[in-house]
Protein backbone atom coordinates (compact mmCIF):
# COMPACT_ATOMS: atom_id res chain seq x y z
CA UNK A 1 0.00 0.00 0.00
CA UNK A 2 3.07 2.19 0.19
CA UNK A 3 2.74 2.44 -3.60
CA UNK A 4 -0.45 4.48 -3.34
CA UNK A 5 1.05 6.83 -0.76
CA UNK A 6 3.92 7.51 -3.16
CA UNK A 7 1.39 8.04 -5.95
CA UNK A 8 -0.28 10.78 -3.92
CA UNK A 9 3.08 12.39 -3.17
CA UNK A 10 4.12 12.20 -6.80
CA UNK A 11 0.86 13.75 -7.98
CA UNK A 12 1.06 16.57 -5.44
CA UNK A 13 4.69 17.40 -6.13
CA UNK A 14 4.18 17.09 -9.87
CA UNK A 15 1.31 19.58 -9.82
CA UNK A 16 3.28 21.95 -7.58
CA UNK A 17 6.37 21.95 -9.81
CA UNK A 18 4.28 22.17 -12.96
CA UNK A 19 2.25 25.14 -11.78
CA UNK A 20 5.40 26.85 -10.47
CA UNK A 21 7.03 26.97 -13.87
CA UNK A 22 3.78 27.79 -15.63
CA UNK A 23 3.09 30.64 -13.23
CA UNK A 24 6.52 32.14 -13.86
CA UNK A 25 6.10 31.82 -17.61
CA UNK A 26 2.64 33.37 -17.67
CA UNK A 27 3.79 36.18 -15.39
CA UNK A 28 6.60 37.05 -17.80
CA UNK A 29 4.22 36.93 -20.76
CA UNK A 30 1.68 39.23 -19.08
CA UNK A 31 4.44 41.60 -17.97
CA UNK A 32 5.60 42.07 -21.53
CA UNK A 33 2.04 42.41 -22.82
CA UNK A 34 1.21 45.10 -20.24
CA UNK A 35 4.40 46.97 -21.08
CA UNK A 36 3.52 46.79 -24.74
CA UNK A 37 0.02 48.15 -24.13
CA UNK A 38 1.40 50.94 -21.90
CA UNK A 39 3.75 52.08 -24.66
CA UNK A 40 1.28 51.73 -27.50
CA UNK A 41 -2.35 51.59 -26.35
CA UNK A 42 -3.50 51.51 -29.96
CA UNK A 43 -2.13 48.01 -30.43
CA UNK A 44 -3.93 46.58 -27.41
CA UNK A 45 -6.33 44.44 -29.46
CA UNK A 46 -3.57 42.72 -31.38
CA UNK A 47 -1.46 42.29 -28.24
CA UNK A 48 -4.41 40.80 -26.36
CA UNK A 49 -5.02 38.19 -29.05
CA UNK A 50 -1.34 37.23 -29.27
CA UNK A 51 -1.02 37.13 -25.49
CA UNK A 52 -4.08 34.89 -25.22
CA UNK A 53 -2.59 32.38 -27.66
CA UNK A 54 0.73 32.46 -25.83
CA UNK A 55 -0.94 32.05 -22.45
CA UNK A 56 -2.96 29.12 -23.76
CA UNK A 57 0.23 27.48 -25.02
CA UNK A 58 2.00 28.00 -21.68
CA UNK A 59 -1.05 26.93 -19.72
CA UNK A 60 -1.28 23.67 -21.62
CA UNK A 61 1.96 22.63 -19.90
CA UNK A 62 0.26 22.81 -16.52
CA UNK A 63 -2.74 21.06 -18.02
CA UNK A 64 -0.54 18.18 -19.20
CA UNK A 65 0.83 17.87 -15.66
CA UNK A 66 -2.73 17.89 -14.35
CA UNK A 67 -3.78 15.15 -16.75
CA UNK A 68 -0.77 13.04 -15.79
CA UNK A 69 -1.57 13.58 -12.09
CA UNK A 70 -5.17 12.51 -12.69
CA UNK A 71 -3.90 9.37 -14.47
CA UNK A 72 -1.58 8.63 -11.53
CA UNK A 73 -4.38 9.13 -9.02
CA UNK A 74 -7.50 7.73 -10.68
CA UNK A 75 -6.45 5.66 -13.69
CA UNK A 76 -3.13 4.20 -12.62
CA UNK A 77 -2.21 1.40 -15.04
CA UNK A 78 -0.32 -0.52 -12.33
CA UNK A 79 -3.11 -0.58 -9.74
CA UNK A 80 -4.25 -4.13 -10.51
CA UNK A 81 -0.71 -5.51 -10.41
CA UNK A 82 0.10 -3.75 -7.13
CA UNK A 83 -3.10 -4.97 -5.49
CA UNK A 84 -2.33 -8.48 -6.69
CA UNK A 85 1.19 -8.32 -5.29
CA UNK A 86 -0.04 -6.90 -1.97
CA UNK A 87 -2.57 -9.72 -1.62
CA UNK A 88 0.18 -12.34 -1.80
Amino acid at each position, binding site marked *: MEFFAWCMIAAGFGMAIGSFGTGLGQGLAIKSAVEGVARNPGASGKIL*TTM*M*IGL*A*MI*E*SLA*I*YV*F*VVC*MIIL*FANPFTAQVVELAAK
Partner: protein
Amino acid sequence: MIHPFLILQWLEEKLHLHLGEHVTYTWFVMIVLILLAFAASRAVKEVPSGLQNFMEVVVGGVENLIEETMGPKGKAYFPLIASFALFILVSNLIALIPGFYPPTANLNTNAALALTVFAMTHIIGFKEHGFSYLKHFMGPILVLAPLMFIIEIIGHLARPLSLSLRLFGNMYGHEIVLMIFFALVPFLLPVPMMLMGVLVACIQTFVFTLLAMIYIAGALEEAH
Protein backbone atom coordinates in the same frame (compact mmCIF):
# COMPACT_ATOMS: atom_id res chain seq x y z
CA MET B 1 -15.74 13.13 -9.49
CA ILE B 2 -18.75 14.41 -11.39
CA HIS B 3 -22.01 15.98 -10.40
CA PRO B 4 -23.79 13.79 -7.86
CA PHE B 5 -26.95 13.87 -9.94
CA LEU B 6 -27.09 14.09 -13.73
CA ILE B 7 -30.56 14.56 -15.12
CA LEU B 8 -29.97 13.00 -18.55
CA GLN B 9 -28.17 10.02 -16.96
CA TRP B 10 -31.18 9.46 -14.75
CA LEU B 11 -33.47 9.64 -17.79
CA GLU B 12 -31.23 7.20 -19.62
CA GLU B 13 -31.36 4.71 -16.77
CA LYS B 14 -35.16 4.92 -16.83
CA LEU B 15 -35.09 4.12 -20.54
CA HIS B 16 -32.49 1.33 -20.13
CA LEU B 17 -30.06 2.85 -22.60
CA HIS B 18 -26.31 2.52 -22.29
CA LEU B 19 -24.64 5.68 -23.50
CA GLY B 20 -21.90 7.74 -21.94
CA GLU B 21 -22.93 10.96 -20.25
CA HIS B 22 -20.81 12.90 -22.73
CA VAL B 23 -22.83 11.49 -25.63
CA THR B 24 -26.22 12.38 -24.14
CA TYR B 25 -25.07 15.85 -23.16
CA THR B 26 -23.54 16.41 -26.60
CA TRP B 27 -26.93 15.60 -28.07
CA PHE B 28 -28.53 17.96 -25.58
CA VAL B 29 -26.20 20.81 -26.61
CA MET B 30 -26.88 20.06 -30.27
CA ILE B 31 -30.64 20.21 -29.69
CA VAL B 32 -30.27 23.48 -27.77
CA LEU B 33 -28.23 25.03 -30.58
CA ILE B 34 -30.56 23.82 -33.31
CA LEU B 35 -33.61 25.12 -31.47
CA LEU B 36 -31.84 28.43 -30.82
CA ALA B 37 -30.88 28.82 -34.47
CA PHE B 38 -34.40 27.91 -35.55
CA ALA B 39 -36.03 30.31 -33.10
CA ALA B 40 -33.68 33.16 -34.02
CA SER B 41 -34.13 32.80 -37.78
CA ARG B 42 -37.83 31.92 -37.82
CA ALA B 43 -38.98 35.46 -38.51
CA VAL B 44 -36.02 37.46 -39.76
CA LYS B 45 -36.74 41.18 -39.64
CA GLU B 46 -35.01 44.20 -41.14
CA VAL B 47 -34.70 45.80 -37.73
CA PRO B 48 -33.79 42.91 -35.43
CA SER B 49 -35.13 42.60 -31.92
CA GLY B 50 -34.93 40.10 -29.10
CA LEU B 51 -33.35 36.76 -29.90
CA GLN B 52 -32.44 37.66 -33.47
CA ASN B 53 -30.55 40.71 -32.18
CA PHE B 54 -28.61 38.61 -29.70
CA MET B 55 -27.67 35.95 -32.23
CA GLU B 56 -26.62 38.63 -34.72
CA VAL B 57 -24.23 40.06 -32.13
CA VAL B 58 -22.76 36.60 -31.42
CA VAL B 59 -22.38 35.61 -35.07
CA GLY B 60 -21.09 39.07 -35.97
CA GLY B 61 -18.46 38.81 -33.25
CA VAL B 62 -17.19 35.48 -34.61
CA GLU B 63 -17.22 36.91 -38.14
CA ASN B 64 -15.11 39.90 -37.07
CA LEU B 65 -12.63 37.61 -35.34
CA ILE B 66 -12.27 35.50 -38.49
CA GLU B 67 -11.82 38.64 -40.60
CA GLU B 68 -9.07 39.84 -38.26
CA THR B 69 -7.09 36.61 -37.94
CA MET B 70 -7.59 34.92 -41.30
CA GLY B 71 -8.14 37.79 -43.70
CA PRO B 72 -10.67 37.76 -46.57
CA LYS B 73 -9.82 34.17 -47.54
CA GLY B 74 -11.04 32.86 -44.19
CA LYS B 75 -14.65 33.88 -44.87
CA ALA B 76 -15.28 30.48 -46.49
CA TYR B 77 -14.57 28.66 -43.23
CA PHE B 78 -16.99 30.72 -41.17
CA PRO B 79 -19.57 27.90 -40.72
CA LEU B 80 -16.96 25.49 -39.33
CA ILE B 81 -15.36 27.99 -36.95
CA ALA B 82 -18.66 29.45 -35.77
CA SER B 83 -20.12 26.04 -35.01
CA PHE B 84 -16.99 25.14 -33.05
CA ALA B 85 -17.31 28.37 -31.08
CA LEU B 86 -21.02 27.99 -30.34
CA PHE B 87 -20.83 24.29 -29.51
CA ILE B 88 -17.86 24.63 -27.17
CA LEU B 89 -19.23 27.74 -25.49
CA VAL B 90 -22.63 26.21 -24.78
CA SER B 91 -21.19 22.89 -23.64
CA ASN B 92 -18.72 24.66 -21.33
CA LEU B 93 -21.42 26.86 -19.86
CA ILE B 94 -23.95 24.11 -19.06
CA ALA B 95 -21.44 22.91 -16.44
CA LEU B 96 -22.74 25.72 -14.23
CA ILE B 97 -26.30 24.37 -14.18
CA PRO B 98 -26.80 21.73 -11.49
CA GLY B 99 -27.50 18.29 -12.96
CA PHE B 100 -25.73 19.05 -16.23
CA TYR B 101 -22.37 17.68 -17.26
CA PRO B 102 -20.18 19.53 -19.77
CA PRO B 103 -19.43 17.19 -22.70
CA THR B 104 -16.10 19.00 -23.11
CA ALA B 105 -14.98 17.59 -19.73
CA ASN B 106 -14.57 14.26 -21.48
CA LEU B 107 -11.57 13.55 -23.66
CA ASN B 108 -13.64 11.76 -26.33
CA THR B 109 -15.65 14.86 -27.29
CA ASN B 110 -12.55 17.04 -27.40
CA ALA B 111 -10.59 14.50 -29.41
CA ALA B 112 -13.42 14.46 -31.97
CA LEU B 113 -13.33 18.27 -32.24
CA ALA B 114 -9.54 18.46 -32.41
CA LEU B 115 -9.28 15.69 -35.01
CA THR B 116 -11.84 17.56 -37.13
CA VAL B 117 -9.60 20.63 -37.01
CA PHE B 118 -6.55 18.49 -37.81
CA ALA B 119 -8.20 16.82 -40.80
CA MET B 120 -9.69 20.11 -42.05
CA THR B 121 -6.34 21.93 -42.04
CA HIS B 122 -4.75 19.32 -44.28
CA ILE B 123 -7.77 18.96 -46.54
CA ILE B 124 -7.88 22.73 -46.97
CA GLY B 125 -4.13 22.81 -47.56
CA PHE B 126 -4.30 20.20 -50.31
CA LYS B 127 -7.36 21.86 -51.85
CA GLU B 128 -5.70 25.27 -51.88
CA HIS B 129 -2.18 24.40 -53.03
CA GLY B 130 -2.57 21.00 -54.65
CA PHE B 131 0.50 18.82 -54.40
CA SER B 132 2.80 21.74 -53.58
CA TYR B 133 1.21 21.81 -50.13
CA LEU B 134 4.03 19.41 -49.20
CA LYS B 135 6.36 22.42 -49.43
CA HIS B 136 4.85 23.55 -46.12
CA PHE B 137 6.61 20.63 -44.49
CA MET B 138 9.93 21.01 -46.26
CA GLY B 139 11.33 24.12 -44.65
CA PRO B 140 13.27 26.85 -46.47
CA ILE B 141 16.40 24.87 -47.39
CA LEU B 142 16.01 21.87 -49.66
CA VAL B 143 19.04 20.01 -48.28
CA LEU B 144 17.55 19.99 -44.79
CA ALA B 145 14.14 18.87 -46.05
CA PRO B 146 14.23 15.29 -44.69
CA LEU B 147 15.10 16.62 -41.24
CA MET B 148 12.46 19.36 -41.36
CA PHE B 149 9.85 16.92 -42.62
CA ILE B 150 10.10 14.77 -39.47
CA ILE B 151 10.04 17.79 -37.18
CA GLU B 152 7.04 19.28 -38.98
CA ILE B 153 5.16 15.98 -38.86
CA ILE B 154 5.70 15.75 -35.10
CA GLY B 155 4.66 19.38 -34.75
CA HIS B 156 1.48 18.76 -36.71
CA LEU B 157 0.66 15.61 -34.76
CA ALA B 158 1.09 17.51 -31.49
CA ARG B 159 -1.66 19.95 -32.52
CA PRO B 160 -4.73 17.75 -31.98
CA LEU B 161 -3.14 16.40 -28.79
CA SER B 162 -2.61 19.84 -27.29
CA LEU B 163 -5.98 21.15 -28.54
CA SER B 164 -7.96 18.29 -27.01
CA LEU B 165 -5.96 17.98 -23.79
CA ARG B 166 -6.09 21.71 -23.09
CA LEU B 167 -9.86 21.90 -23.30
CA PHE B 168 -10.28 18.61 -21.42
CA GLY B 169 -7.87 19.57 -18.64
CA ASN B 170 -9.43 22.97 -18.11
CA MET B 171 -13.02 21.77 -17.97
CA TYR B 172 -12.33 18.58 -16.01
CA GLY B 173 -10.01 20.39 -13.61
CA HIS B 174 -12.61 23.03 -12.97
CA GLU B 175 -15.21 20.34 -12.37
CA ILE B 176 -12.96 18.58 -9.84
CA VAL B 177 -12.06 21.80 -8.03
CA LEU B 178 -15.75 22.61 -7.79
CA MET B 179 -16.54 19.17 -6.38
CA ILE B 180 -13.72 19.37 -3.81
CA PHE B 181 -14.84 22.80 -2.67
CA PHE B 182 -18.40 21.54 -2.51
CA ALA B 183 -17.31 18.63 -0.33
CA LEU B 184 -15.35 20.93 2.01
CA VAL B 185 -17.81 23.79 2.48
CA PRO B 186 -21.06 23.47 0.53
CA PHE B 187 -22.33 26.89 1.60
CA LEU B 188 -21.36 29.82 -0.70
CA LEU B 189 -17.71 28.77 -1.05
CA PRO B 190 -18.14 27.24 -4.55
CA VAL B 191 -19.72 30.46 -5.86
CA PRO B 192 -16.44 32.33 -6.58
CA MET B 193 -15.13 29.19 -8.27
CA MET B 194 -18.28 29.05 -10.41
CA LEU B 195 -17.74 32.69 -11.39
CA MET B 196 -14.23 31.73 -12.43
CA GLY B 197 -15.82 28.87 -14.35
CA VAL B 198 -17.69 31.38 -16.55
CA LEU B 199 -14.37 33.07 -17.30
CA VAL B 200 -12.61 29.77 -18.00
CA ALA B 201 -15.43 28.62 -20.27
CA CYS B 202 -15.29 31.79 -22.38
CA ILE B 203 -11.47 31.91 -22.54
CA GLN B 204 -11.15 28.26 -23.52
CA THR B 205 -13.76 28.69 -26.26
CA PHE B 206 -11.83 31.71 -27.51
CA VAL B 207 -8.52 29.84 -27.41
CA PHE B 208 -9.86 26.78 -29.20
CA THR B 209 -11.49 28.74 -32.00
CA LEU B 210 -8.50 31.06 -32.33
CA LEU B 211 -6.07 28.15 -32.60
CA ALA B 212 -8.33 26.40 -35.12
CA MET B 213 -8.39 29.62 -37.17
CA ILE B 214 -4.60 29.99 -36.97
CA TYR B 215 -4.03 26.40 -38.07
CA ILE B 216 -6.39 26.80 -41.02
CA ALA B 217 -4.82 30.17 -41.91
CA GLY B 218 -1.42 28.48 -41.77
CA ALA B 219 -2.59 25.90 -44.29
CA LEU B 220 -4.01 28.66 -46.51
CA GLU B 221 -0.90 30.81 -46.75
CA GLU B 222 1.95 30.25 -49.20
CA ALA B 223 4.90 28.10 -48.19
CA HIS B 224 7.89 30.10 -46.96
